[in-house]
Every structure is written in C-alpha cells, then in structure tokens.
C-alpha cells in the first residue's frame, strides 16, 4: 500500500475507449433486453423506487463503518478492526435500545462502545506498536466472542425481543415526489444522518486545519513531527473518532435494516466490505459512499432477481454484489493510492 502511483504499468489511454464501448454496449443491451421476458423483468426491477431504497438501506451500515475507517486510515492507521466495531456497536445498540426504550440510547451506546474499541486498537497499534493488521484480527476475534457471550448472558434463549427502532421519517414535500419520494425521502432517520455525515466529513477533512493535520500525519509523519505536530496524539484521536463512527454502523445494522434484533456474528463480515469500500472510495468520503452504495445496489439487485423468479441458482446470484464491485474495481480504479505512511507505526525521535 505504500507504493508510489503508476508503479505498475497500465494502459491509461485505453480508458476512454472502454467508457465509449461500455456506453454503446449498454444502450444495445437495453434495447435487446426489452425484447426478452427476463430482460423486461430486470428492467422492471431497476426502475422500481424500492430498488434504490433497498440499496440505500443495505449501504448505510457499510457507509458508516467505511467513513469511520476512512478517518483512521487517513491518519496512517489501517483499520481492519471495523468488523469488531460494527459487531460490538450492534450489540450495544440492541441492548441499550432495549433497556433504554429508545433507539437513540442504542445509537449513543454504539458510539461509545466503538470508541472504546478504537481506544484498544490505538493502544495496541500506536502505544505498543503492534502490527495494525494483527491488532485488528485480534479485535475482530474478541468482538465475536464478547458479543456472543454477552448476548447469551443477557438474553434468554428461545425468547425473542424486538428493540425499539428508529421511526420512518417522511420528509415533507420531498417524500411526495413520484419516484424520489419513495426511493430517497421516506427513510429511517439514521439513514439521513449517515448521508449527512458525508459532507460533514468532507468539510472536516479538506477544509479545516485539523483535517489538514490529520492528512499530513498519514502522509508524512516525520515532516508533521518536525513542524511540531504530536503525530501519535493525532492518530489516537483519529482512531478514537473512527471507532465512534464505525461503532454507530452497528446501530445502523440493527435498526436501519429494520431487524431491531441481535444474533451471534450479526455483522457476518460486513466490516470487511466496509474496509474494502474505504480503499474503493480512494480514501475520500464521497468515493466511500459510492463504494458502499454500489455494493448495496448489487445486493438489492440480486435479491430482487431471485424474488422475481429468475432460473439462476441463488448461490450464483449471491456472488453478484461481490463480482460487480470487483469488475468496477478492475475497470475504473486505476492506481488508487492510500496515505503513504498507512500501516507503519511512528516512533518519536529517541524512542526505541
């Protein structure tokens, strides 16, 4: 990840050709598709507002986790522990909304728990200078075990309890718009908050002094250190913040998806997809959104394809979101480059 751009040869001028070809093929495909029953089915799926709605719902937990991961990685600390933050956050969100009788308690608890996991990750990787991936792997194992144990201790087996969830918030006027109203403007409030976080984070990262400091620490820690920035303090703060945001993705997993319930290994690897979305989004909040949303689209599409009765084995359909993301990655992502110092611990002058 520390390789300079353009290190591997690639045919850059071909990009325009690829775009043109894809456009042409797409138009032709649409025309042809309408002639077949399957094609009409697919186009019906794509045209329904519920499709985008479902994709957005599926993308929200990924988006929050990935935004969390972004903060940490910009400061130079790889955060593959997103999975643990999401899972522990989800457990905290479920338990706290259940006992606190409001989903807001769940959201707050998820943030706090995420923050604590962030603290652990920061302690391991910054203070103890343990390998950032090992720390993450250990934390992920820890989260899996701790939530399973906690769930077993707090809740009785064979009794199902629904925690209170966020209500659907229909935005006035906007929610009455023909297509967009249903697709975008009648969601669970947490989804708006997650979307709102994108511009907020963009502003903080690119328009404030702290954002600049953060990025410089991730890019050139030595240089940042010589101008008097306490590199490790900035990183600590970044990882803590990262944990808080990623923890809230657990709340989204529990309530934005409308399950309002918990189960062992609820996150089931979604934190890794979020981790991939950070890189996919080229370490940029807007790109991260598109990474998460693309995955959500693929997911919603394959599920609908099945419900509409396409004669393809569902196991192959389940691959779709991953394959679509992979294709997008190969076709459109040329030499994305992360923060230069990502993955390497920073030792102050005179330290061992």
């Amino acid at each position, binding site marked *: 990840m520390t390789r300079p751009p353009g290190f591997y040869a690639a045919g850059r001028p071909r990009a325009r050709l690829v775009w043109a070809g894809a456009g042409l093929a797409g138009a032709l495909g649409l025309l042809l598709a309408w002639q077949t029953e399957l094609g009409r089915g697919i186009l019906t799926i794509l045209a*329904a507002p*519920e499709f985008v709605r*479902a994709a957005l*719902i*599926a993308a929200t*937990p990924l988006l929050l986790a990935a935004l969390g991961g972004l903060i940490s990685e910009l400061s130079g600390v790889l955060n593959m522990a997103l999975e643990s933050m999401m899972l522990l956050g989800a457990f905290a969100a479920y338990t706290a909304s259940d006992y606190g009788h409001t989903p807001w308690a769940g959201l707050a608890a998820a943030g706090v728990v995420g923050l604590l996991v962030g603290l652990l990750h920061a302690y391991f990787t910054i203070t103890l200078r343990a390998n950032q991936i090992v720390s993450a792997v250990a934390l992920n194992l820890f989260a899996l075990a701790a939530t*399973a144990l906690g*769930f*077993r201790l707090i*809740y009785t*087996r*064979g009794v*199902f309890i*629904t925690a209170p969830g966020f209500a659907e918030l229909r935005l006035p006027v906007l929610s009455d718009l023909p297509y967009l109203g249903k697709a975008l403007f009648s969601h669970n409030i947490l989804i708006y908050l997650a979307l709102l976080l994108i511009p907020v984070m963009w502003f903080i990262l690119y328009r404030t002094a702290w954002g600049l400091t953060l990025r410089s620490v991730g890019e050139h820690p030595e240089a940042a250190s010589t101008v008097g920035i306490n590199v490790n303090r900035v990183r600590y703060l970044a990882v803590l913040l990262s944990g808080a945001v990623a923890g809230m993705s657990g709340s989204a*997993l529990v309530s934005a*998806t*409308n*399950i*309002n*319930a*918990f*189960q*062992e*290994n*609820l996150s*089931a690897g*979604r934190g890794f997809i979020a981790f991939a979305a950070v890189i996919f989004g080229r370490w940029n909040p807007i790109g991260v959104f598109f990474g998460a949303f693309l995955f959500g689209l693929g*997911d*919603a599409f394959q*599920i*609908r394809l*099945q*419900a*509409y*009765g396409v004669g393809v*084995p*569902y*196991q192959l359909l*389940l691959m779709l979101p991953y394959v679509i993301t992979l294709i997008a990655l190969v076709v459109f992502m040329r030499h994305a480059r992360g923060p230069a110092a990502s993955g390497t611990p920073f030792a102050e002058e005179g330290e061992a």
Partner: protein
Amino acid sequence: MKPSKLFALFMIGVIAAVALFGCAPAATQAPATQAPATHKVAMITSGSTNDMGWNYNALQGIQQIKDKYGWEIAYTENAKPADQANIMRQYAQQGYDLIFAHGFEYGEAILAVNKDFPNTMFAQINATTEGDNVVGTNFRFGELGYFTGMAAGLMTKNNKIGIVAAVDAPQVTADTDTMKTGALSVNPNADVSVSFVGDWADLVKGQQVTQAQIDRGVDILIIMGNDFTPPAIELAKAKGIKVIAGWTIEAYPLAPETIIVSAIQDVPGVYVGIADQLAAGTLKGNTTSVFGFAEGKQYLGKWGDTVPQEVKDKVNQAVQDYLAGKLDIGVK
C-alpha cells in the same frame, strides 16, 4: 536476544506449560462401565442454540430427555466441521452412550469415530445412515409444505405468495415444492415465488429478502428459517402481511394477528423418541426412522386470530384425508 527468538522461546514455553498442566491431572476415564439403568446423552450442533429454531430445538430435545429420565446431558454448539469428529470422540471417551449429531453434515465425522466406540449409539438427525451403532432420523419432508401451501392459497387475496427459505437443501425444497402444489390445489391462480437467503442465521439478509418479497407485492409470506424468522414476522406485521412460519417454533405468540399458522417439525419429540427406545432397550443400529404427521412429529401449530373458520376446516379436513390415505399430496 532477538525478538523473534524470544517469541519462539515464549511460545514453546506456553505450549510446554499447557502440555504439562494438561498431563498432570490426566484422570483416566473408565469407558462406559456404569449401571445400565442410566445413560449419558450428548448433542453436537453446528449453529448457536439461541437461534429460535433448529439448534434451539436440539437443546430442548436433550433437556426434555433430562427432564423425563434424569440422565446426564451435555452439548457443544457452534461446532466447526474440522472439530466434529474430535468433539464426538471426546464425548464417547467420557462414557456418553447416546450422541446426537444434529444435521446431515455429520455423516463423515460419525463414520470416522463410530467403529472405535461400539457401545456408544450415534443418532444423526435429518440423515439416512449406516452402521451398527448409528441411527438416523428424517422428517417426512413435503407434508408441511403441502398443507401450509393450501392455507396460503386459501388466504391470499391478490394471489401472490412469497416464500423466504434459508438454503436450497432438499430438506427445504421438498417443502417449497409441495407448497406450490398445495397452493395450486385450492387456488389455480396462485403465483408462488421462492427466495433463498443463503444462510440460516443472517438476520440482515433474511430481512432484505423478506422486504424484496414484500416489494414484489405479496400478501402472504411463508418464512422458513432460524434466526431471521422472528424479525421477518415483525416486518410483515408492520406491513399488514399475513405470515406462515416454520419449521421449528410455534410462532403464534409472536404475532397472533399476523400469523396464519406455524408449521412445526417436533425436533424435541424426535429426540425423546430415540431416548425412549434407548431406555426400552430397543434402539438398534442401521435404522433410519421417518417422522411425519402420522407419528405426530410434524403438525400444524395454533391458527392465527384472523384466520376464517372455513380455511381452518378445509386444511384440517385435508390433513385428515391425507392421514386416512384418501389424499395424495405427492410425498412418499
């Protein structure tokens, strides 16, 4: 000393210490020499026992055995394929003489250990088995599907029925197939579609698939999963859609107004049935028992509050006809 060497030394130390500690109290277990009146029962399952479904039922099974006979019970949940044989060996070595393997995925692991423990009986659920000390049990797959399909066909107003199933194992698809024939037998216009979640436990995926069926415009959902079933019922309740739930729990208490009926495979009953045979001394290897409506191990649960009497009557009559041999539902 180099860090790597230090680490090596350290790891060797840890492993040696553990080995020593482990050897010290090596209490030699006497293999199964207890009085014949009592037995020890163990159960191994691949999922978590708080799944509100299949694995929870297995736990209930051995607990009911304990309640009935007072035998010692033990279980391992979340067992990985790599550990299956080791787990069963551990139980057999401790003198557990009835070991339940909860699912079709334990076939090879049983074959790997059963010959070493001729006095232990291995009972595999949902599998046809071979071996002098191995018994298998199966449900008569397809029965529940037919009658629930009938209920769905009678209850639907817009003729759109959606099935949310976990995976396309034949144990599942036998029922989804007869659901279609059952629904069509009473409602030739029924449009039944099946979606697979691809997982028994993933709540989020289960909810996404349920939502997709709802978006398709169904007014009856048949949900057959483990963990994801209760949240899916909640979702249907919020959208005013009627639900048939299966195949393990009685779902009526979760949503009396929403549930049409629960389809129930009485897994605990099967467990107790095998224990009964063991207690009576009639449990023989190389057998596979099949349980269904006739044996009372598959049945329809409590009818929902909103189901009209004529629907209940019609379905119940069909069950009676089937049991009397007057109705062919395409299940052998």
